[in-house]
């Protein structure tokens, strides 16, 4: 067992930003903390890094409590949303920083810096000024800087959120590969479920300071623990399981749950259509209720619809 959180609570005055969170991150595992903004996930991350003190509960590494260990002795790497590169140092100077703090000798340091820059795809950038880099390049440098001293645990706080969408998707894939290759133990905070599912072995969903569900991405995606979580994971319509032919109490439908199919069991009238990036989204009236669906038809058409189980989630709780 590597990182172990036991009933961690963090208070600011009277409000609890994090309440009673217990979570483990095993050696080599990547866990994503996923939740809407303000749910306390960043505070939890900062508490693990030692930048905040828990009001109760404990943060432990390999069963030894970290309460008295200051930030700089924890050997946890931290990557901020906006890089926070040292503006007065070059790319190499930034990456080498943690190695200098650990008194790694110059020759080995230079070698490690070059290796890491290659790992993040920035060969030849060593002498650049960090202020001349693009947002994506800056995040790569920040990642290399955090990885350079081989931290026991890598903490990533919304590492890709400041980037534009295309770059974000590209970097998420790169980051996932990187974490796997280096078999890094990591905790990623994000509000983007695509990002969480791309990166993580396990996902922990946070809501209002609490961890409400932990599990492998596929499981969390297909079986959210309650309606609120299901809504956060993209379900916008809740119906009895029988509606989609499933023997369960309640399911949540995502926008892609229904698709136009002449052989489908459901029938409705198209009310609206909107072009999205790679498909056409419809608003369909079925027996007086409005549903979202996908398919290439026109407003006013009567259509038949089939259920796509990828877009359906069984919702727990009541």
């Amino acid at each position, binding site marked *: 067992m590597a990182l172990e959180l036991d009933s961690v609570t*963090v208070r*600011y*005055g009277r409000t609890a930003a994090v309440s009673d969170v217990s979570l483990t991150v095993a050696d080599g595992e990547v866990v994503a903390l996923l939740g809407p903004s303000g749910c306390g996930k960043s505070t939890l991350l*900062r508490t693990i*890094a*030692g*930048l*905040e*003190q828990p009001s109760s509960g404990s943060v432990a590494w390999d069963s030894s409590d970290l309460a008295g260990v*200051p*930030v*700089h*002795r*924890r*050997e*946890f*790497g*931290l990557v*901020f949303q906006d890089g*926070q590169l*040292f*503006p*007065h140092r070059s790319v190499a100077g930034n990456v080498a*920083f*943690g190695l200098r*703090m*650990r008194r790694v000798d110059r020759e080995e340091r230079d070698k490690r810096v070059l290796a890491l820059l290659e790992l993040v795809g920035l060969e030849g950038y060593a002498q650049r000024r960090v202020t001349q880099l693009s947002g994506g390049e800056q995040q790569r440098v920040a990642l290399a*800087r*955090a990885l350079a*001293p081989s931290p026991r645990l890598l*903490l990533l706080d919304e590492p890709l959120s400041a980037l534009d969408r295309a770059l974000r998707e590209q970097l998420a894939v790169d980051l996932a590969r990187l974490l796997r290759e280096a078999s890094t133990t990591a905790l990623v905070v994000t509000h983007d479920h695509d990002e969480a599912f791309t990166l993580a072995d396990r996902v922990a969903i946070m809501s209002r300071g609490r961890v409400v569900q932990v599990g492998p991405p596929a499981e969390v995606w297909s079986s959210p623990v309650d309606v609120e979580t299901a809504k956060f994971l993209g379900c916008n319509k809740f119906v009895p399981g029988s509606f989609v032919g499933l023997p369960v109490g309640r399911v949540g439908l995502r926008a892609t749950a229904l698709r136009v199919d002449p052989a489908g069991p459901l029938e409705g009238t198209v009310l609206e259509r909107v072009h999205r990036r790679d498909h056409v989204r419809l608003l369909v009236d079925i027996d007086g209720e409005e549903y979202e669906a996908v398919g290439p038809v026109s407003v006013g058409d009567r259509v038949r619809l089939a259920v796509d189980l990828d877009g359906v989630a069984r919702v727990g709780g009541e």
Partner: protein
Amino acid sequence: MAQARAGLRSRTGWSAAALLPLAFLGLFFAWPVLAIVSLGLREGGVAGALVAGDTWELVGFTLGQAAASTVVAVVAGLPVAFVLARCRIRGLGLVRAAVMVPFVLPTVVVGLAFRTFWPDGGVLPIVLANAFFNVAVVARTVGGLWAHTDRRAEDAARALGASRPRAFLSVVLPALAPAVGSAAAVVFLFCATSFGVVLVLGGSRYRTLETEIYLRTVELFDLSGAAALSLLQFLAVLAVLVLGALARRRRETALSLRGREELARRPSGGERVVVAAAGLVVVALLTPVVGLVTRSLSTRDGWSFAGYAALATRGERGTLAVTGIDAAVNSLRTAFDATLVALVVGVFSAVVLVGLRRSGARIAEVLDTALMLPLGVSAVTVGFGYLITMDALPGDFRTSPLLVPLAQALVVTPLIVRMVLPVLRAVDERLRQAAATLGASPWRVWREVDLPLTGRSLVAAAGFGYVVALGEFGATSFLARPDAPTLPVVIARLMSRPGELNSQMAYAACALLMVVTVGCVLLIERLRVPSSGEF
């Protein structure tokens, strides 16, 4: 908020560190000032001074001239603040330097410069000279906030149908009000305790509390009366400081709301009128400077370097105990020592203050206000206080050559703190946290992150402190030994004695002092500009 939760250990550590600057202030500021206060109370001088009619005339004139000077400084400073904050025009660096130079010019020099236009002195030159110094305070303080105030609020008001003046009055001015208020409080303070200018331009006719304290001590030997006046002045200053602190607090909350700094624009339409007004102010600020140089070169017999040549002598009929050049060398050396002391105390205090704020310790407010106090309490009171307390210290401290640098350091330290503190605070907390997670200890974080990022402004603060120490007159005039005067003291002495050559020599010394000052200011400006936009 987050910092308030940081460990008790760091809070205790910072609080302990805060005791060092507080001890320095206690020994070299609070003790002398309190000694004055108790002297005034003990000898019954206070009661006597309070019932004397001319005391209240003095108070009235002191406050009246300070209020008038403040109004002039604010009116002249606002257009300059606008230009510095909002306009992209050529020669902006010149404007900035031209505004800054008067603020650091030695008071005696400014007094003499105004005397070249009003040979007999008077109320008007006193008010104008005091305002002349302080235009920089208004322009800098207000301009600083103005540059960080989101221009889009103004644009929104314009889009909603407000005319330009209307938008200024209803959107811009309220946003700037805290800065204007706090600048006005500081200016009022400076003007109320202004010494050199009033001494040179007022003579014995127009006296403020500050000059009266000096005259009673040095010429009438009425120590208890002087102490009573010091006490009176101290109370007035304290009241103004509290008002200023309130305004500053509001300003800091306003600053935390600021949007991104926007690019300045070229002035257009009605803005050109404001720019023209700022131009007039700059010309007005440069006039005394030019006048002084001209005066130093002109004698009854036409242009001449006689005054400059006389600097190698002891003045006409041996007015001075040393030559002008000796005094200049002594000035440079004393100011260097003072700057060194002020830099150590000031930077240490600023670092401690930031640490205290981050760990949420209460003592931060105490230290902050304590550090501001010397700025407001008259230098004459401090100098006078040294005279009556320093005998109690071990060793022959009163005749020690360290006395003058220490007094000057006291005047300079608050300015250094005010310059360094905002830059230290501007270092992103997460940048420091990034360094900590990479294994840097708190001390290492300071050395690797804070120091390199604030280095330029440290140098600028040192340069600024140096010129202020160089021109310090109030405390120095009390403490400098006759055989080791500084240049401002020499200038005042030369002016108080008859003789054409003496006054010629005084003007030449003023011009020299001014050249050194301007050189320092230009250097500071070079160091300052790039750092402001870097982070």
